[in-house]
């Protein structure tokens, strides 16, 4: 390949980059602006709202189940009865092969297994609000745990 043939595409790419930077600089760099304290507070509040909802579901709060239209247990059993402080839920170990399910599983898979088997409840939408809240509470409770995916 001659040096002339190589030079033209490089020049073209350079011009295109300058074009993007010139016309889209505000959007491209927007995320680098400092967050305001109000923004950070709002993010934290949104997160903690999920934690609290998940905590209530995890502890068998009937009103929260009703609001989110889920039935996590039909035996009186709540998640927290086997997992106080979410102990032994081990979110930091997922994904992993989960022998009870006999497949490679995510935390959401395991949450649904616990709902269906020990709790004899009704499986929930894996992307639904209740699942997000349960997952958030479990992760928040284990925020000091060390990531160890795959460990049984």
């Amino acid at each position, binding site marked *: 390949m001659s040096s002339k043939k190589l030079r033209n595409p490089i020049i073209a790419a350079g011009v295109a980059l300058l074009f993007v930077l010139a016309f889209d600089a505000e959007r491209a760099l927007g995320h680098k602006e400092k967050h305001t304290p109000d923004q950070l507070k709002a993010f934290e509040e949104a997160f903690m709202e999920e934690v*609290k909802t998940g905590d209530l579901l995890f*502890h068998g*709060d009937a009103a929260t189940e009703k609001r989110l239209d889920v039935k996590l247990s039909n*035996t009186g059993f709540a998640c*927290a009865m086997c*997992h*106080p402080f979410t102990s*032994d839920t081990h979110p930091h170990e997922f994904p992993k092969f989960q022998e009870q399910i006999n497949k490679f599983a995510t935390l959401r898979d395991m949450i649904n297994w616990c709902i269906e088997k020990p709790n004899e409840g009704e499986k929930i939408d894996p992307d639904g609000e209740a699942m997000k809240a349960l997952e958030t509470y479990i992760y928040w*409770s284990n*925020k000091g745990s060390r990531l160890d995916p795959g460990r049984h």
Partner: protein
Amino acid sequence: MSDLESLRREMDRTLRPAGERPDGSTMMTRRVFLHKSAIYGASAAACGLFPCISTIEMAFAQGGAAFTFAWLSDTHLYPKELNSRFVEKTVRAVKEIQAMSPPADFLIFGGDLAQLGDPVELRLGAELLSTLAIKKVFIPGEHDWYLDMGATYSKMFGESPWTFDHKGVRFIGLDTVSRARDFWTSRKMSDKERMGHMATLDGTLGGDWAAVGSDGLKYLNSKLSDWPKDKPVVIFTHNPLYEYYPPWNFWVRDWKQVHEIVRPYGNVTNIHGHTHQVLYNEIGKMRSIGMLATSWPWPYAPTGVPKLTRPMVRADPGDHFDGVGWAAHTMTSAARVNYEYKMWRKDIFATARDDSGTGDNRNQVLTPRIADRP
């Protein structure tokens, strides 16, 4: 070293004269030696058989006859229409206790017969236990108590504390559950709401509810004062009489006073429920042994598991007969007490770190719950 561990060591140094163990004449048996060696990682495969007997020796009254008693606790019964599994397991335990040969001299029911203190649940428990022909004695659990502050429970199963002497052993049953600080009146809670908070192990409103209480301590002191210091004493409690993990009330808040009272006595064994797991501890000259639940196993607490405990195996959550059961205690004429966990699956103790209820959690750091904080 954690503050709790430092405190335990200091208590132990204060309460245990140099060279003494919980019973001055106690010699560890081979089975306990295996138990001890497992703590330090040696193989304990010999204990993998069902049932695994952990044997300890304690001084027995001269001329005492051999006898056995059974411990059953933490059945956590709901109305049977809601939860038949807990009924099934209670029935199984009762049948096995009834079939013991030689028969047990008595049954101690160690609390949490009901899940939410409902008279329906307590009546169901009484009905299931009524098929047992042997003597039965009861101490309350918090789940039996806080719907009506023990009114139904006490009427049906009698008041605590109590004491009786049996074949050379003084047995004392204490109430460790009825002294929660009042968090409900100012919040205008209904009885059911109060019960709900007290029935939540990791709840925050109940606080440090477990205690022997000043009246209980006085009672304990008076019942020991006329008992020879070298003769065996067994104290039954729902909660352990030492500090294991206060956030779940795996303790009594006045455990130090308890230890001061039992200090002069050389042969004191505390048998407790509430923790739903295999536990063993010694502080001063008192040993504490944790019993299984029939309902479900609790995980070991994030901190504070006594170093003398050989952890039970991780239970399979898909098998509701795993990690649960009852216990038989045999006092032999050869001056031994055998306590035998009757767990309903073949493995009781973990033989590998990854299968252990404590070793499995080496990367886990937990945060207390938040939604019920005041």
